[in-house]
């Protein structure tokens, strides 16, 4: 690759990283990027899960080291979050519901696998 091409690639790469932050694929790192992300309207609103409403409960549960180790109490199941959204009059589309359930099932499966290995 000649020097001109390499420089062009670098410029494109820099622009791409900036675009990733502008469009919220990565966390914003400047005030302008943050304002852009804040101003974006989500097509489907997903409420804060009930198990995350009480910060002291989050402290008691402790830090999550990897996504597969996520454990949330049984009474804060996906169904409860969906029910709460319904009570608040928020309509959660099927694809969002499916993703919530998929994540939850995947987390449970991984936990079961890890437990069976121990």
């Amino acid at each position: 690759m000649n020097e001109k091409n390499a420089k062009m690639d670098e410029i494109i790469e820099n622009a791409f990283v900036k675009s990733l932050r502008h469009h919220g694929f990565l966390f914003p790192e400047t005030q302008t990027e943050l304002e852009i992300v804040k101003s974006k309207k989500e097509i489907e609103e997903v409420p804060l899960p009930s198990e995350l409403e009480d910060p002291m409960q989050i402290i008691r549960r402790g830090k999550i080291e990897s996504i597969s180790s996520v454990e949330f109490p049984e009474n804060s199941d996906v169904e409860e979050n969906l029910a709460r959204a319904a009570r608040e009059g928020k309509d959660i589309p099927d694809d969002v519901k499916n993703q919530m359930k998929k994540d939850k099932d995947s987390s449970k499966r991984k936990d079961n696998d890890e437990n069976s290995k121990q």
Partner: protein
Amino acid sequence: MKMEIEEDHDLLVITSMKDEPEMRNMAFTAFCNRYQDFLWDVVLKVCRKHSNWYELSRAVYSNTIINVFEYAGSFSIDPKSDAKLIRTKIENWLISIANREFKNLASGSKDPIDPSELYDTFKDEKAVMKIENFMEEELDDITFSEEIVSKALALLPKERDKHILMVYFQYYEKGKGDQAKNLDPKVRKELALKYNTTEVNIRQINSRSKKIVIDFLKSNYNSKAQ
């Protein structure tokens, strides 16, 4: 007992007082009540563009809150600043913490938080602009549309390849020369473990994926760049 303090910054000061547990917990809860909607909104918007987004969002949010509790004292600002500026700085601080947690969770890295770094990780916009102007004055405002970004990422054949490339971009720092061209060795090692492959292979996947994306963007550069 009800928390009567008005200023957000004061709530953080009290949250840092570990020898006053009752006051600390109340101040922390009051602080979280004020910022939870903002934090969840931004965390969710970013995480939704990644696989396992719901689980990832909850983990990033939880860990950010825990860091606020642990490192509330690392936030500092002139208390005479107006409320709007204080809120902006606190938002920046929260997003800096969330960004670090997001990187760790997405890459599998166990990089510990250094509280002294938390406040300064949001970049000084003027300094960023200066570097950009110096490097390529005429290109400093170029960004690709969301549609182009999505299409470029969709060209990658496997979710694994997309994930590795996104982790690379999370750690990418403009203007760092060759250092910016490589994944952090610690992160590369974690990815190799995650995907049960070698670090050399991770480097190759990253390089191949980047070429696919860059080639696509080049072909759209003139017509679609905004």
